[in-house]
């Protein structure tokens, strides 16, 4: 990393990273965010992350980015993931065990259908 020397440098980093965050011009159709806070990990978020990655690979899906974040504060329903598809409201799922992660990939990512029994929240925060 080179040093930031001016507000212009800062703006450049911002614009580039914003694209990634909002999936603009990245060729991706959506992203799955796995909450990896302490309680997420304690509840098995690492296995969830692994299952998400595997399920995407098994189904030959490569236009969905998988990213990690801090926890969303929904400790009671950890592990949690957020599914964000282009042009749609983000959806947060709870109790995402590896099996549930696979279901979400099948139903939501492939079938464009919300997995209602795992739904925690829909819409922007």
């Amino acid at each position, binding site marked *: 990393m080179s040093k930031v020397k001016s507000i212009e440098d800062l703006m450049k*980093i911002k614009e580039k990273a914003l694209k*990634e965050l909002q999936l603009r011009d990245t060729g991706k159709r959506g992203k799955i*965010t796995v909450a990896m806070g302490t309680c997420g990990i304690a509840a098995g978020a690492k296995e969830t992350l692994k299952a998400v990655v595997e399920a995407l690979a098994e189904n030959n899906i490569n236009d969905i980015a998988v990213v990690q974040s801090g926890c969303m504060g929904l400790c009671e329903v950890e592990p949690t993931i957020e599914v964000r598809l282009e042009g749609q409201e983000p959806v947060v799922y709870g109790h995402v065990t590896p099996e549930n992660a696979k279901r979400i990939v099948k139903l939501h990512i492939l079938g464009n259908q919300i997995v209602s029994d795992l739904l925690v929240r829909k819409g922007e925060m």
Partner: protein
Amino acid sequence: MKPILVLVSVDSNSVLLGAKQFVNYLREALEKYNLKDSVDVLETGSMGVYTQGVVMAVFPDDVYYSVRSVADVEKIVSEHLLKGRPVLSLEIPRERLKLVVEKEKVTEEVRIVLRNIGVIDPRSIDQYIARDGYFALHKALFEMKPEQVIETIKESGLRGRGGAGFPTGLKWQFTAKAQADQKYVVCNADEGEPGTFKDRLIMEGDPHSVIEAMIICGYAVGATKGYIYIRGEYYGSVENIQKAIKDAYDYGFLGENILGSGFSFDLTVRLGAGAYVCGEETALLESIEGKSGRPRLKPPYPPTNGLFGKPTVINNVETFANVPQIILNGANWFKQFGTQGSPGTKVFSLVGNVVRRGIVEVPMGVTVRELIYKFGGGLVGGKQLYMVQTGGTAGTFIGVDKLDVPLHYESFRDHGVSIGSGVILAMDEDVCPVDVALNTMEFFEHESCGKCTPCREGTRLAVEILRRMSRGQGKREDLDTLRQIAITTQEASLCGLGQSINVPLLSILDNFREEFLAHIGATACPRGVCRFEKPVTKVKTRV
């Protein structure tokens, strides 16, 4: 005070309808008509649910207007304020008005300190920058003098989120004014409060917000070195903070000559070892100095005599996390949230028997009822709520009669309900106040560092009495003795630990007095929780 007051509602809904523009225009118009000295303009939160326009109220005339354009503002100024003729066409009719003002307030989540949590990858400094990260630092360094930074924080009304609610700007000012060759900024990330994990959430999920704030603070007060004191068990926080510090150095936000401004600041992490008292600011400073974590005698206070005897600002993680947003958006923006005396939001940890345990950030002034039922989803198994402890272990125990008290830094003084570090512990009908009081005092007995007698002995005595009571051997005088212990310990202890045990103890004794009395001379715990030793008759039914 000026003779006329105009209140403009600038809640999120009104902002969409143009409230900000209208306020700006209003100020200009007052200038134009030379009314500046006779009219005060105040931006407030929501004045009720009203979707037809922005609500603007003129006092003392008590006229409410619905404003939809700057032309409406112009009319109100030129007709009503200048000539004293209310603009009937814009008035909200009285029958509608009732609805407007009496409509029950609904608290919604507002994310200031948690704005990035779960949104960005905390290990990516670029993503933090994408969400305006380090723009506040740039603004402070290049567009503001240190005094202006302090003025802004003071003006915002930000108060310490670590529990005591001390005005942050004032604290910074004390340190700024102190003369010394070296000053420090310390972040209290010890989070020893049972049930709280908001600071961990912030450090794990948005570590740069704390780092950016500390650099800004250093610039404001003239400090060049900072420490983040993190509880040792917080592995995830330590890891993310350390990675963030490294990235901030690489980008030149830390170190020599930050962004070419000439200001330099270094930041390091120190690990705590999990003693509750180490969260007390002077004990924490001792611990950073490499001594054992025992509190110091105060005064002198840290802002003038802190780390290594030098002027030191010490703030909680959540307090710091507010700072970049205040610098970026201004004090007035911050003041639109929360209450007048306690602006902004608070991160609450909902624990105990609630359905959705977890973290929620809402404006100050939220009620306990809203926290438990709206955000916490009510009680597990549909049980009855019996008792709530607000504010953490050193906070107040309240019954269901106090659920509608708005929580802010005056709610303890005004209503006996403390906000503390924001823990809301909900307890259902299966608990017994005597047992709860015993548990609480055992905690304090265990965590008392033993440096001073009132706290060491007071907590021990309280535990002894409560233990006896919970075995069915309580006496009537015990209640008075417990009160006395609470008061003496509070008055005579050295540090905040001993000085605050009166809060939980007195509140539980007062609010649940009947239950305590019912334990005395009874044959079994009236709530079926405590195990009485004698007599052996088993009573299973609950009263």
